[in-house]
């Protein structure tokens, strides 16, 4: 019967879609978000650009594998990796202890820290410690003092942050009782709401915010307040991988180490961020 044939065809088709990856990696599918400039973003024609787009091409050349890049919405990116939709994540994702329970990370290929942005002309622009960087690992007391210093400014305000981001973890820990926290699916959405006046502050990666603020149409957005990194914020953006693919992690680590050593990472970060994001 026709129906039976159809079912058979569909099943066979599905089976062919799924070629198991061979043990030695010849082809890697890497996922990014495509909405987190300058790390990664989408151009009008649908193609991708950004620091990670340039970087993955370099790394794949070093690993001598063929790579394809796909986009995936941020809040489903880790489940999609574990579900086997792709093999690696390069989406400005910071390696945190919490995420490492589920997936593994390579060495970091960039870190800019997390900071705030506010609307130009608002009182929040005057938050103290602007331009200072605090490590939540080695300088924890100072960092926590800085948080106390900005609390009076944030009292009763609304902070926008991307769901499942390290900034949201930070806010959850330090500012949950001070301000109302609203979670967005993508960083661009909280930018829109900052400009529209629905939220008073947003928190995201320094690299993202400084680029976003420089963008045309965002002249009303300014970076403010202290910058935090390390600790619960993780050790910088890294390639996210399935735990069992240790061989792939070793390959990425080796390639990243090479790219750091020969200055490729510095060169690319200067191009995209305007400053060096090489982690040390």
């Amino acid at each position: 019967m026709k129906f039976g044939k159809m079912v058979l065809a569909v099943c066979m088709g599905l089976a062919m879609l799924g070629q198991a990856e061979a043990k030695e990696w010849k082809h890697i599918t890497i996922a990014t978000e495509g909405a987190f400039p300058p790390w990664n973003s989408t151009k009008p024609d649908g193609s991708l650009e950004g620091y990670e787009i340039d970087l993955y091409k370099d790394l794949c050349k070093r690993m001598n594998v063929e790579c394809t890049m796909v986009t995936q919405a941020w809040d489903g990116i880790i489940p999609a990796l574990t579900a086997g939709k792709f093999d690696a994540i390069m989406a400005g994702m910071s390696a945190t202890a919490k995420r490492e329970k589920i997936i593994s990370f390579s060495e970091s290929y960039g870190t800019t820290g997390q900071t705030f942005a506010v609307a130009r002309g608002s009182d929040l622009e005057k938050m103290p410690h602007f331009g200072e960087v605090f490590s939540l690992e080695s300088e924890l007391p100072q960092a926590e003092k800085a948080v106390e210093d900005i609390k009076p400014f944030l009292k009763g305000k609304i902070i926008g942050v991307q769901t499942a981001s390290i900034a949201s973890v930070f806010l959850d820990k330090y500012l949950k009782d001070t301000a109302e926290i609203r979670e967005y699916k993508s960083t661009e959405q909280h930018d829109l709401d900052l400009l529209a006046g629905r939220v008073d502050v947003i928190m995201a990666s320094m690299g993202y915010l400084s680029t976003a603020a420089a963008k045309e149409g965002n002249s009303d957005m300014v970076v403010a307040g202290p910058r935090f990194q390390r600790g619960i914020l993780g050790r910088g953006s890294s390639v996210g991988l399935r735990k069992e693919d240790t061989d792939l992690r070793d390959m990425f680590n080796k390639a990243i180490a090479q790219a750091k050593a020969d200055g490729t990472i510095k060169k690319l970060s200067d191009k995209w961020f305007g400053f060096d994001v090489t982690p040390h």
Partner: protein
Amino acid sequence: MSHASFWELMNFGPDGWGWSMLRAAGMTVMVALAGFILGGFIGTFGAWAKIAGNRPVRIAADAYTTILRGIPDLLVIFLFYFGGSLALSAVYRAFGGEGFVDFPGFAAGAMAIGLTSGAQHTEVFRGAYYAIHDGEIEAARAAGMTRMMMLRRIIMPLLLRHALPGLGNIWQVVLKESALVSVTGMIELARQAQIGAGSTRQPFYFFIAAAILFLAITFVSNRVFRFSEAHFSRGVRGAR
């Protein structure tokens, strides 16, 4: 905050978003169509199960339609998107494969849509079957037709005629549901509009453009359905 006009954004030059939006509209139609056809197969089977199946089969079909009508489509798409890969991989490994079965966003979206619309297809086909007069089937039997011939020559054409208006409604629903597939990262209209809105900070223009494209698709497909409804009804009426 905005400066560029609607037409500056939506032009078809190298910096314009016109082609991207059109491409995304094409993707919307493709994934909706794939889901609709898949839903049709599921619905055929479901209707058969409800009409002619034995008790357990009927209960299963009822459970399927009840559950899928009771939970949000967004959840179904999520579940299917993530759960689908896991399940397929498990099956694949059970048969001795290694690693992961890739499950592309398009297939996931189409299948999720197919699964949700299948529940509606089931009800439409069932209703259409019951709308066929017993006399018409009896007459076919009296004319000495075999079961298969009766199905092919009498029941199917009549079924289609009764089902067409319902199918038109389902198509509308499916078309709109395809917007939810954007959560799987597939770049269809809704997702493309979000990307454009984010990149240019002009959300209104992008979402209105997406809305207009959806309306255009709706309008055209409405016409197609109305035409085919008229066609099928005329044919049958003429034969009477």
